[in-house]
């Protein structure tokens, strides 16, 4: 050997060559450069049920994110030939033989898969690998980035942007509430923002399924599930958690969106728990960011230590956010003199309706909400379009009662969107609130009539026949 650097010189444990001053082995480092190209030994396909993990050009698997016990990949659904986000959870060796662990995961995943809403990333399928080493579920692949990534890139959001996101997340919470599901791990990295400014909550109802699959925790014993900085105080304890826990986490997430910081942070679980149970919210952070008082008030209420002091349900929270938005915008109807604004509001209504396409339950929920508001609208302001509004309402009611099914899916979407727009153009009015504003928008009625003329004509003929 050329180098005789004295007795103190360190030797590489792998090849026996002397190490350099940094403790690295130059010979090992150079030899690695002479190894055969990795691409030639492309890793084998990774398949879970009907899903095959996609690979980059260099053969590495296409990862979207990584958690403590799970990895999310882009995968191809080989049966339906579509791309999905596949979350794969590693079952620890100790829990692999457990039938109970597997059943618990499947039960939770099944419940989550029943949820459908435009603001929730849909869960398509779930399962466990035959050898019991992995659980997985396939979700809608949402284009865009997480709220966390957006804040890290662009910094905190303003109140208006935050409120728009808050309302969409609350809609998702309301839909989940109807299925008695709670998220348990609502946080910036579980909120996806699409390029069209839509919000999609991911992993809804699956935090428990994931931990169940991990076999480490059991909520019936009250152990911790969630992400400490965004978890509610009761998640640290042994008591039950309910929708108000998600409301707390949403408050913490919005706080993060407005300031770039979680309201309570710390280096250990104990430290965070201790801070969460002290009544000292750093409201100065919000004030420094010029967050308007009404929004600060709502956030304070969501972050109350006692769940009893928080909004009692997502619906109540929605009312608080909407009241807040009204206070901030002071506008409840679409001005006649701003056609662009009107067009935008209708496009939004149509997009919401289209997002429910293929999911009759969500579409019906959308219709029910619009119909409820429409029922409170007096005839007078609608003038000549009143008759069309009523015809559209009758058609959809008959459709959902199963009496009349001849309407095409496309026509239904347009009619629901038109109703939604005409009775509440800015989507501001909570169901229980008296009608606040309206427009008799002939241009929209004309467009909808044009799109659905045959459907409406056929329906009216059918009505005459029935009568």
């Amino acid at each position: 050997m050329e180098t005789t650097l004295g007795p103190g010189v360190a030797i590489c444990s792998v090849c026996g060559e002397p190490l350099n001053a940094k403790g690295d082995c130059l010979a090992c480092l150079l030899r690695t450069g002479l190894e055969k190209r990795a691409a030639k030994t492309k890793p084998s396909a990774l398949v879970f049920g009907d899903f095959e993990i996609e690979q980059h050009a260099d053969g590495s698997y296409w990862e979207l994110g990584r958690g403590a016990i799970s990895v999310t990949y882009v995968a191809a659904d080989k049966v339906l030939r579509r791309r999905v986000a596949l979350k794969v959870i590693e079952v620890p060796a100790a829990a692999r033989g457990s039938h109970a662990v597997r059943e618990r995961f499947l039960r939770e995943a099944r419940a989550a898969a029943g949820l459908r809403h435009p603001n929730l990333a849909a869960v398509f399928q779930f399962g466990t690998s035959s050898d019991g080493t992995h659980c997985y579920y396939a979700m809608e692949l949402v284009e865009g980035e997480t709220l966390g990534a957006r804040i890290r890139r662009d910094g905190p959001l303003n109140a208006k942007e935050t409120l728009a996101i808050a309302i969409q997340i609350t809609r998702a919470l309301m839909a989940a509430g109807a299925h008695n599901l709670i998220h348990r791990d609502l946080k910036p990295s579980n909120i996806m923002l699409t390029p069209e400014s839509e919000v999609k909550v991911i992993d809804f109802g699956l935090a428990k399924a994931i931990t169940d699959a991990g076999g480490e925790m059991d909520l019936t014993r009250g152990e911790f599930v969630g992400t400490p900085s965004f978890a509610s105080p009761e998640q640290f304890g042994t008591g039950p958690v309910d929708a108000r826990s998600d409301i707390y986490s949403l408050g913490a997430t919005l706080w993060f969106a407005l300031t770039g910081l979680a309201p309570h942070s710390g280096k250990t679980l104990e430290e965070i728990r201790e801070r969460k149970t002290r009544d000292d919210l750093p409201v100065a952070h919000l004030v420094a960011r010029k967050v308007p008082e009404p929004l600060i008030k709502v956030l304070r209420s969501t972050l109350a230590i006692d769940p009893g002091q928080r909004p009692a349900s997502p619906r109540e929270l929605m009312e608080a956010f909407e009241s807040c938005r009204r206070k901030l915008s002071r506008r409840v109807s679409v001005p006649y003199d701003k056609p662009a604004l009107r067009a935008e509001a209708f496009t939004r209504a149509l997009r919401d309706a289209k997002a429910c396409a293929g999911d009759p339950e969500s579409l019906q929920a959308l219709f029910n909400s619009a119909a409820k508001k429409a029922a409170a609208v007096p005839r007078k302001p609608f003038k000549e379009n009143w008759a069309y509004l009523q015809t559209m309402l009758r058609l959809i009611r008959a459709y959902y009662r199963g009496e009349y099914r001849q309407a095409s899916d496309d026509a239904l979407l347009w009619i629901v969107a038109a109703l939604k727009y005409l009775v509440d153009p800015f989507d501001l009015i909570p169901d229980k609130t008296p009608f606040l504003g309206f427009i008799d928008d002939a241009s929209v009625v004309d467009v909808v009539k044009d799109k659905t003329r045959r459907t409406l004509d056929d329906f009216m003929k059918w009505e005459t026949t029935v009568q």
Partner: protein
Amino acid sequence: MLAAGRTRAEPDIAGAALAQLCQIYWAPLYSFVRSRGYTVHDAQDLTQSFFAYVLEHKIYTRADRQKGRFRSFLLASIKNFLADAADRERALKRGGGQNFVPLYEAQAKEAESLFQTYSRTSNEDRLFDRSWAEALVAAGLERLSSDYKQQGKQRLFVELRIFVAGGADPLPSYGELADRLEISESTLRSDVTRLRARYRDALRAEVRRTVDTETQVDDELHELLHVLTQA
């Protein structure tokens, strides 16, 4: 021969690339100058002046591609530069003072420490090659480290580095390390494979900047390995 000096239509870009290469390979040149008996300050000034001379006079464009590597070219050039008494004197009188390649204190210290470590056991050419190998792998590791950092996987890189760079401690078992990183053993194995493949590509890309073909990359790596391990 040299990607940086090849693009004559884009002299600024080529110049910038060359300046970056000179920055990376500053230490080997400095070690060589030091091995000729110059003091620390004189060696620093001379190395700076040499790079200034290379860039200013575009001598890389005169190099014959067929003659091979950037490493051999620089070694031959610095020998000529030092042999030219007029150049040398002029450089020392000017006190270096050339800003073509910025000189950082940490970089200068590290180069001196490298020289002190190997100067007693290597002749000047071998010292140059050894320093060159150090600079090369450091650039490859740096490239890899910043990739992992960008992906927020800095900890993974630090923990798995030993599988590429070796070290005095025995390699950790996959089981223990997987437990520590809280990932499965199979995930860890694929992480290690990926890290080694990425390092390999980073190192070869670094070498490829100084030679013309993939075959020459292999030759260059074999030669440097031979210098390090020859009896």
